[in-house]
């Protein structure tokens, strides 16, 4: 017996289907904490901070709290480094019952002193977890003291899990980064220079992007935080433009840098041909006193597109008419994915994100076809309902979404932090199309009950 799956009462305003006309449609509600008991795909404040700062490879990342938070984030992402790899280790003060009763400041202090001596990091980030917000450890004071004794920046990250949503964690991370920015020398930095914010160098994506900009004659002062280095962050205020890729996580920092250092910022995306090209052109336009930069950008785009286009046609031929569902962390990525999927002939039947805002969802509504479901902070039950109802052939998401797709006999593309294949840049578009092709067109689905296989 097939039963109807409903949407929980407290969540109905976070889901809507794009219908024809569309003038009288309700506003989507978003940017609120997840409904209790709804099995949100989101994590917590700590997670938000941890993902933003994680790729800073020469910093010590110490999680202050019981062991879980550090254990579950040990070497969790595909953020690669060209040098030091301190970020791939997991450090925890591992608070036990007695520490919870008597306070964890001493343990934090000794941990820091010992770890800094052993690993010689360029800076240390101290993440407070839920319990720190309760027992009231003064981590700011400990950080200050240790910084004074060791001579390196020791930065508290106020990321108590329950104090908001993942977005508040992004903010806390940006606050810590902002303390580093402006503490290094800007000598010798070109006036034609940028920082790339919200690019985490998953599978080396930051390197691909950096190469394009450098080929255009632009100096990349820092990438934040992909393949991140403390010294690069410290001198980031010497750049003349900030380009923000994962805007949900890093716009705060861009705004603060604009306010404090007068550095303008622009939102970019490196996914798909259209947005990737635009990201190069927009930067070139910013430096309009140097027409050679635009020339170089055009050269890169035409060279890369000429290589890529015929390859994509092969995928498009077989993928045309297939339907995709997208559920990712940030809404900005969904815009690019919709365009990228269209360029290989696929339509989008579901577009959702964990942390989108009103503007994001409004823009999604404009972009999407009729009948597309748009959803904020969804959960496995809803996602399953939608992919089945809309007969999706592909789900794009992260680790937690993957088994939903596979159980139901649907192809899957991992577009989250754990991916090992670069999906950004022109080459990334090729990889993306190839991955989609490999999953959607696999002969294994013939055995899936949805496609007529035996249960």
């Amino acid at each position, binding site marked *: 017996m097939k039963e109807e*799956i409903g949407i929980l009462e407290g969540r109905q305003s976070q889901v809507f289907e794009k219908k024809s006309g569309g003038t009288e449609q309700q506003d989507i509600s978003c940017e609120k904490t997840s409904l*209790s008991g709804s099995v949100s795909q989101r994590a917590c404040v700590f997670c938000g901070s941890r993902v933003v700062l994680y790729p800073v490879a020469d910093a010590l990342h110490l999680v202050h709290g019981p062991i*879980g*938070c*550090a*254990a579950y984030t*040990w070497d969790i992402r595909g953020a690669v480094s060209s040098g030091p790899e301190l970020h791939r280790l997991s450090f925890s003060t591992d608070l036990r019952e007695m520490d919870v009763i008597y306070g964890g400041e001493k343990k934090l202090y000794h941990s820091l002193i*010992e770890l800094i001596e052993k690993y010689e990091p360029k800076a240390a980030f101290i993440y407070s977890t*839920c319990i720190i917000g*309760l027992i009231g450890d003064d981590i700011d004071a400990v950080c200050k003291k240790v910084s004074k004794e060791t001579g390196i920046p020791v930065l508290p990250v106020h990321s108590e899990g329950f104090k908001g949503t993942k977005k508040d964690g992004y903010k806390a991370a940006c606050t810590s980064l902002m303390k580093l920015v402006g503490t290094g020398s800007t000598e010798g930095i070109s006036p034609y220079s940028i920082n790339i914010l919200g690019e985490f160098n998953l599978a080396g994506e930051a390197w691909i992007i950096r190469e394009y900009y450098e080929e255009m004659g632009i100096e990349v002062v820092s990438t934040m935080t992909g393949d991140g280095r403390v010294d690069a962050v410290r001198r980031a205020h010497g750049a003349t433009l900030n380009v923000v890729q994962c805007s949900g996580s890093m716009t705060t920092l861009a705004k603060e840098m604009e306010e404090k250092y007068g550095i303008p910022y622009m939102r970019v995306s490196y996914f798909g041909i259209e947005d990737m090209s635009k990201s190069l052109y927009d930067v070139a336009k910013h430096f309009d006193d140097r027409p050679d930069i635009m020339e170089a950008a055009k050269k890169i785009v035409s060279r890369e597109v000429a290589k890529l286009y015929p390859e994509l046609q092969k995928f498009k031929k077989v993928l045309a008419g297939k339907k995709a569902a997208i559920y990712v962390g940030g809404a900005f990525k969904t815009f690019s994915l919709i365009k990228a999927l269209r360029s290989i002939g696929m339509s989008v039947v579901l577009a959702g994100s964990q942390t989108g805002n009103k503007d994001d969802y409004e823009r999604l509504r404009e972009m999407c076809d009729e009948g597309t479901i748009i959803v904020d902070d969804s959960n496995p039950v809803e996602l399953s309902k939608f992919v089945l109802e809309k007969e999706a052939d592909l789900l794009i998401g992260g680790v937690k979404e993957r088994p939903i797709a596979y159980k139901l006999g649907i192809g899957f593309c991992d577009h989250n932090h754990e991916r090992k294949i670069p999906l950004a840049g022109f080459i990334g578009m090729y990889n993306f199309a190839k991955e989609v092709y490999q999953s959607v067109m696999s002969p294994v689905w013939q055995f899936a009950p949805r496609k007529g296989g035996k249960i």
Partner: protein
Amino acid sequence: MKHAKTATQNACRLCNPLGACLAFRGIENCVPFLHGSQGCATYIRRYLISHYKEPIDIASSNFNEETAVFGGSHNLQLGLKNVTQQYKPEVIGLATTCLSETIGDDVPMILREYKKAFRNGSPMPVMIHASTPSYQGSHIDGFHAAVRAAVATLAVEGVEKQHTVNIFANMISPADIRYLKEILDAFGLPYMLLPDYSKTLDGGPWGEYHRIPPGGTPSSAIAAAGSASASIEFGATLEASKSAAGHLEAAFGVTRHHMGLPIGIKASDRFFALLEELSGQPVPEKYEDERRRLVDAYADGHKYIFEKRAIVYGEEDLVVAMTAFLREIGITPVLCASGGKSGLMRKKIAELIPDLDEEEIKIRDGVDFVDIEDEAKVLKPDLLIGNSKGYTMSRKNNIPLLRIGFPIHDRFGGQRLHHLGYRGTQELFDRIVNMVIEERQNASSIGYTYM
């Protein structure tokens, strides 16, 4: 240079609530529910999914600042209501976290309030509550706490003792669970195995969406556990006061047969002998055959592995059992290490291996992977045996790693690995021998095609 060590570096254990969620996944029609921050549920889901490759929905009461100040009652009740509506579970497996434990939420009282407020004629799921603060113990403690809580909540004293056994098999793979069930069936012994996530965490494809994956121990079977004639419980360091079988013995007089995980011939023999005793049936020929093949394999493979040196790590019970197995095939476990710290590991290993000290077998509990790696640099073992989190040190120090237990995040099919009984031992033995052979073959300049 020797460094002082306060912080835990690359932990060799996980937190208490993870184990509880895993155990709850082995109860039929049960949704695990964490009373704490959203992140706990999400991180644990992600961690479990990466091993089992199955949907694992864990609900959360999703604490916010008000909850932390004024208590979690409101959020918990709303969450229970929503989960009930969305999943229609028979059972909700509720585990606490460091957050709810520290603010001192009285969960039993909240549950009583909830039941009062929402009693409206429609059947309400059974609530099983396990106390699992992350600042105590490790994931294995949460696992046992959840199993014990399930039994304490559901089991009742029957009118008369039935010819059934309860089997509490510890944190083992879905494949191991299936094998145990097959053995019990072959003995014709009616049983209640808890938790049974053999299907929920390693199941088939779905034609339509299932809110809760099919499979698991039915709550009615758990209810009958009080009238079973005996319980079998695996786990050398698992004490009766913390275990499900311990509860059943104390509350209903169900005899607790406690033994280590049956890995290796000797330990498996003890398990099969117990089944003979409880069932009154001889060991089925099929398993005698498995044993014969295993003894034969030991003979065929013994020279490849004799006096190889291994470091074995993981949950204490797994380490104790693996250590005894390694000794019986001639491998020296130069270090037996665990992130857990029951205080019993050394004693339990010493019971199985009396010549521990002469053999220079080191035993360390409460360690992390940096400790183990420091030991590995000195001990220079031939093999590492444990979960996939040892890969970092394996790669760095060029020591091959045999992946067993949980988690296995960097190989395929961890949920289908066998460890227990003659069949599991056979699989482990074959894999160990092959690992040694492969090393030798790769290292040889000749490239022998017969090994």
